[in-house]
């Protein structure tokens, strides 16, 4: 049964109605609620440093879909996060002891403001928004995820890139102690991603710090990750420790690993197949054994907001 929800429903209500918690999570969040500490003042976003803790001060943001949301359990147990292993269940299994605090993010390159920031200081100037986005993986499955985060465009403007900055590059933490996956050369670590400055200042991309109104779980990219809803999921770099403003196009991990299969742009495009599988249709996670696949939409259905960015680009060649 499809339950339609209006897009402007408050995040707290969405959480209480649809948040699926398994027994373990329930016990853990209960135990944490008692000791939850809020470390910043009302001036900025308040992100408690306990895993799974409720995020305060979240307001509904624009662009949210009213499609049925993927369950909390599916979102947090079916992940691609090669730093914690290459199977979908590995990140949930291997990321539980990962420490997302203390955490620093360094901002580098062609910008007026640069430096190394504590995670709390980094997000303090911004307000937390909830945005319910479709997420289309390059492997032809998709989810609908209620993210909590800060618009990337606001972050980019805050650091005031200079005219030389044409791209924004991101890097994930590369810690073999905590991340068993990086002990093996499956990808050229650290994980790298990038956007053009026009893409990064588009209102859609989000730096997410939460899911379902709660602090983002480790396996989903704690404490902060990128969400670019019109691109394949691998553009959504997790566990970000470095953001640089560059004049040349940055190297991106999957493009480095298999340039024939994964491009820099990685826009969702049902007309351009992956060399080994079709991208025309997608399996919506949680739809059941006999639901069948659904048609994949150009730019994952976000064309009205982003198609203009690519009007002079051959999307078949620049996949």
């Amino acid at each position, binding site marked *: 049964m499809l339950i339609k929800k209006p897009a402007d429903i408050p995040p707290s209500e969405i959480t209480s109605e649809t948040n699926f918690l398994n027994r373990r999570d329930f016990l853990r969040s209960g135990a944490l609620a008692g000791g939850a500490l809020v470390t910043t003042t009302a001036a900025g976003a308040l992100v408690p440093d306990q895993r799974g803790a409720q995020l305060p001060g979240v307001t509904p943001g624009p662009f949210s879909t009213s499609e049925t949301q993927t369950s909390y359990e599916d979102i947090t*147990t*079916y992940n691609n996060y090669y730093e914690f292993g*290459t199977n979908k269940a590995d990140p949930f299994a291997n990321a539980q002891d990962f420490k997302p605090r203390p955490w620093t993010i360094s901002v580098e390159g062609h910008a007026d403001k640069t430096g190394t920031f504590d995670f709390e200081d980094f997000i303090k100037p911004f307000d937390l928004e909830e945005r319910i986005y479709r997420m289309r993986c390059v492997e032809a499955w998709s989810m609908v995820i209620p993210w909590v985060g800060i618009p990337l465009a606001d972050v980019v403007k805050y650091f005031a890139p200079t005219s030389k900055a044409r791209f924004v590059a991101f890097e994930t933490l590369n810690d073999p102690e905590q991340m068993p996956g990086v002990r093996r050369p*499956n990808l050229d670590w650290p994980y790298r991603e990038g956007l053009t400055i026009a893409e990064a200042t588009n209102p859609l991309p989000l730096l997410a710090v939460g899911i379902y109104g709660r602090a983002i779980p480790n396996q989903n990219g704690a404490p902060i990750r990128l969400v670019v809803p019109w691109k394949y999921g691998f553009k959504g770099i997790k566990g970000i420790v470095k953001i640089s403003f560059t004049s040349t196009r940055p190297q991106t991990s999957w493009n480095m690993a*298999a340039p024939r299969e994964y491009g820099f742009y990685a826009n969702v495009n049902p007309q351009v197949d992956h060399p*080994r599988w079709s991208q025309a249709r997608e*399996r919506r996670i949680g739809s059941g*054994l*006999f639901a069948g696949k659904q048609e994949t939409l150009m730019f994952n259905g976000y064309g009205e907001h982003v198609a203009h960015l690519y009007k002079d680009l051959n999307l078949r060649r620049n996949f």
Partner: protein
Amino acid sequence: MIASLDTLIQVRRIWKPIVFLLCLVPATLVVTDGFEITGRLGANPIEEIQDRFGIWALRFIMITLAITPLRRITQWNWLGRFRRMLGLFTFFYALMHFLTWFILDSEMLISAILEDLTERPFIMIGFAALVLLTALAVTSTDKMRRRLGRRWQRLHYAAYVIAFLGVSHYWWQVKKDVTEPLNYAAILAVLLGARLFWRWTRKRKTAKDFSAPKQS
């Protein structure tokens, strides 16, 4: 070494039914996990079912191919009695893997299936392996074996080709980390290597026996 009549009766009456039931465990788990009795199929159950059947098909062909070298090393001739059953279970799991893809994943959309079969080499390779497996399953009866005579053995050497196609099929669809397919490739290499080694030593031995009579 000839196995005693007692052993053969024991194999047929006790061990064969036990092994048969054991071979059905992975398939049973797919069903019981589906109903969340023994476990779960996870967020993407179709992919999980397809992967499990596929991996068990690969495991069963390796187990089947391991029988002959194992029998040779241990001298347990009764092991040979399980070869047909294990081979047929390879076919069963490969068929279930195919049917999951055909019915649940492709939803029997002929256009999508034809596109997959013709444009995606790894699917074509898997399909070729299934066609060969079907031929071996159909000719696995005693009657077919007698009827085909010497050609039967030649036909059933296709088991090696199937194992090779199976590993390639797995290797080709992995996104990046080829550790698991590599494991199966290594097992296959050992199983084939053992046979080649024995064949080579036997040839050398026979050659020596004929060409260089012992000096006294």
